[in-house]
């Protein structure tokens, strides 16, 4: 079982931890379903293939006994709560299993009046990391197969939940891959940065998976689907693609919690989270704002200070 474990002990999580978390989730889910606290629980069930998991809404204690939490539980379940994604909220108070990164989305959605805290029973997971895309799904999580976002995770220990499954995992000593990549792009000459993104955006097939999976893309009509006026060309050509990704990054600025689901689901492997992270970094530097750490009344782009930086304005 430890054959493939990374030498670095701190980043190798034993499967037993996930089993413990799974057990805690089951117990809690059964209890809240039984006592009627919630009408249902959004969580993970085992996938049909080994080493996979799938999101599910369960409504009975019996089903709850089947809930799992494993490194394959990559999905951000908060996406199922908004109306545009055929949300489940109208059924009454809902339980939801949430990793730290998912919690940031929940906080953001609360700040944007999309969900109410009292409508949720949050079963948070003290998450030890999930698989990256195309990673080998061994039984334990190692630096080799952990998701890139988990390398720089700062929210393992969720706060403000109704229940926390698991305790005190530490992820440290992992190479900050995304930060390094961002620094690399930033250091490129401007023309090469353009070339980099041009190549990526040109591949986009406008499948809109990024939009579909994003908890914050809850608009009932996306700006990019509007044709009067058509602000963003919607056929998969480089011009429209570039516009789409810039507009999307702009719309997510100050909101995105960094779950990186967009990047995970992208069939063309466009490094979308890189854009979101860059915007998050900028807003942190300019306005000392980090999205989703707690429900906020106003996002960084919905408020201002009279002495905000204006060095770029003549």
């Amino acid at each position, binding site marked *: 079982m430890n054959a493939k474990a990374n030498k670095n002990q701190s980043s190798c999580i034993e499967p037993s931890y996930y089993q413990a978390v799974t057990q805690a989730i089951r117990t809690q889910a059964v209890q809240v379903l039984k006592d009627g606290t919630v009408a249902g629980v959004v969580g993970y069930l085992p996938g049909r293939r080994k080493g996979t998991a799938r999101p599910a809404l369960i409504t009975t204690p019996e089903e709850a006994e089947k809930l799992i939490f494993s490194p394959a539980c990559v999905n951000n379940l908060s996406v199922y709560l*908004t*109306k*545009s994604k055929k949300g489940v909220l109208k059924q009454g108070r809902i339980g939801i299993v949430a990793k730290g990164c998912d919690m940031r989305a929940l906080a953001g959605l609360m700040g*944007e*009046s*999309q969900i109410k805290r009292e409508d949720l029973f949050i079963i948070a997971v003290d998450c030890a990391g999930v698989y990256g895309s195309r990673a080998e799904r061994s039984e334990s999580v190692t630096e080799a197969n952990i998701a890139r976002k988990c390398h720089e995770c700062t929210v393992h220990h969720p706060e403000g939940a109704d229940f926390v499954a698991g305790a005190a995992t530490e992820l440290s000593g992992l190479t900050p891959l995304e930060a390094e990549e961002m620094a690399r792009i930033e250091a490129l000459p401007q023309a090469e940065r353009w070339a980099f993104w041009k190549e990526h955006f040109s591949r986009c097939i406008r499948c809109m998976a990024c939009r579909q999976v994003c908890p914050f893309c*809850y*608009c*009932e*009509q*996306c*700006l990019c689907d*509007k044709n*009067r*006026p*058509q*602000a963003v060309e919607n056929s998969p050509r480089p011009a429209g693609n570039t516009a789409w990704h810039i507009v999307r990054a702009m*719309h997510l600025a100050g909101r995105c919690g960094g779950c990186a689901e967009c990047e995970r689901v992208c069939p063309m492997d466009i490094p979308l989270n890189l854009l979101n992270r860059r915007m998050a970094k900028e807003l942190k530097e300019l306005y000392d704002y980090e999205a989703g750490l707690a429900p906020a*009344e*106003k*996002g960084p*782009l*919905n*408020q201002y200070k009279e002495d905000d930086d204006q060095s770029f304005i003549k």
Partner: protein
Amino acid sequence: MSRIGVFVCHCGENISRTVDVEQVASAAGEIPGVAYACDYKYMCSDPGQNLLKKAVAEHKLDGVVVAACSPRMHEKTFRKAASAAGLNPYLCDMANIREHCSWVHEDKKLATAKASDIVKLMVERVKKGKSLAPITVPVTKRALVIGGGIAGIQAALDIADAGHQVVLVEREPSIGGHMAQLSETFPTLDCSQCIMTPKMVDVANHPNITLHTYSEIEKVEGYIGNFQVTLKHKARSVDESKCTGCGICMTKCPKKKIPNEFDQGHGLRTAIYVPFPQAVPNTPVIDRENCTMFQSGKCGVCAKVCGPGAVDYQQEDRFSVEAVGAVVVATGFKLYSIDRKPEGSPIQGYGEFGYGAIPDVIDGMTFERLASASGPTGGKILRPSDGKEPKQVVFIQCVGSRAREKGISYCSKVCCMYTAKHTMLYHHKVHDGQAYVFFMDARTPGKGYDEFWRRAVEEEEAVYIRGMVSRLYQKGEKIVVMGSDIQVGVQVEIEADLVVLATAVQAQDGADLLAQKLGISYDKYNFYSEAHAKLKPVECATAGIYLAGACQGPKDIPDTVSQASAAAAKVMTLFSKDQLERDPVVAKVNEKYCVGCLACKKVCPYGAVEEKEIRDRQGNLVKVVAYVNPGVCGGCGTCQATCPSKSVELDGYTDEQIMAMIESL
């Protein structure tokens, strides 16, 4: 297909000198959707306007672009002409080819090309334009005035005299405010109460004024012309309808030694009391914290002696809702206290002046009460510690004011004048006394003000010393004042009998909370913000709410009264019509697509965005969306730029219009 008419003006030679107007007109004729294009010498002249009107009719135009001067110059002219020709005025736009083109470029070829582009931009804009109708909002012709000081009284009387109903709310048991506390007023030295009390009585007797004292604002809903205000009437423990104001309760009350707030704590009052003899209404109130009946249940003397049986220990706070169309906020100010401030307060006290612990270091308002004939000393200047007449009095200006590090950086505006007045009052009352004033600048910009100050110096022999005081300390019966005279360049030391501090004027306690209820903005000092510092000095950014007096910033009585009357005039202007008509450039929400993230609400500078519940026929909540109140919307469009799904749209500047313009580039 649109049928747009384009009219290119020569403006004499102002445009035609550098722009080939004929070419611009003929190019405009080629733009798809343009049904008619021509050029003319003076479009704004009568024949020019007639040309436009005739063309609208003849060519069945559904939009007009006048390529001429700046819209800031003649937009109204041409929209009026278009309107006269039966066209919606908002389908008439101007292409600015004079200020933005012919006057700023010399090269005729480039200028002509640019003029054609500008025309094209505006044609595209008009093509996507919509007919708009002015917005009307009904007006409730009844005003609420918050605060019963001189500002509120003046505003209430002015509005009431104009024939409108006024609801006047005061949180203290009597109206009168700070002005009732003053002894004499600058620059004429007339007795404050002599000019104030008749106005208070006028308020009480005015048939159009409903007075609620000992009451506060609980909640404000609605918008211009249509506010619903919930008032909280604090329990007075005396039934106003029964009380005759005979005052026997006060003479019999056994609790007699409570420091009187009206006298800045230097006089005494009973537990059932009116703040001062001329109070309006002359109905006592029971101070429950000091009343034996309320504290121990044993007393009840006032109820026993009250003939009409007005005393009611069971009375509770009561609430009422008033419908009003306009609100005048006149909540006044409070004075800075030099006392030690709680940890973390942005404002510091004055440790160097003893944090208020030296009994003979008093503030200006206390001096007013000492000088007032109705005050605790009967108008004699006697110092608080031992009741002796002070022979050396030091006045210190700018205590708190203009002291950035103490948390207040502004000038309190009234202190220079009232300190000069104090030195005069002192000199009149204590002939062998000497007044000294430490000051940084004498700021006396008012009618007769500088003359008044100079009189204090030249005739009343106050010694003004330019320089500040570093420290005050008690030395036996004296207070040592360590100051400096920067003109001579020496340190100055005075052993004073009494020190009077001209403490800063600050916003009232709770000013921020009231502002939040009203939805008006306030500055970092909690003074209320006017909509425009120069051109809208009495209006709030929130339509229908007006400011009067020191709640907006330090102000003296004449300025306060002027602003109160100005606010009243604004209210009367609003009340002069049954319906409020507004420019229709306002935002509208597309409820079908709005998902209610309310980002628009967060950025709206006017507080015009509200939440609206969409329900199905069974009454089930379908969703919550944003709603822009057209009566309140100012038309900036920040909401639309912020809305991710563009479900809110600013009429007159729709995305469709702007995109069409960009596409035509």
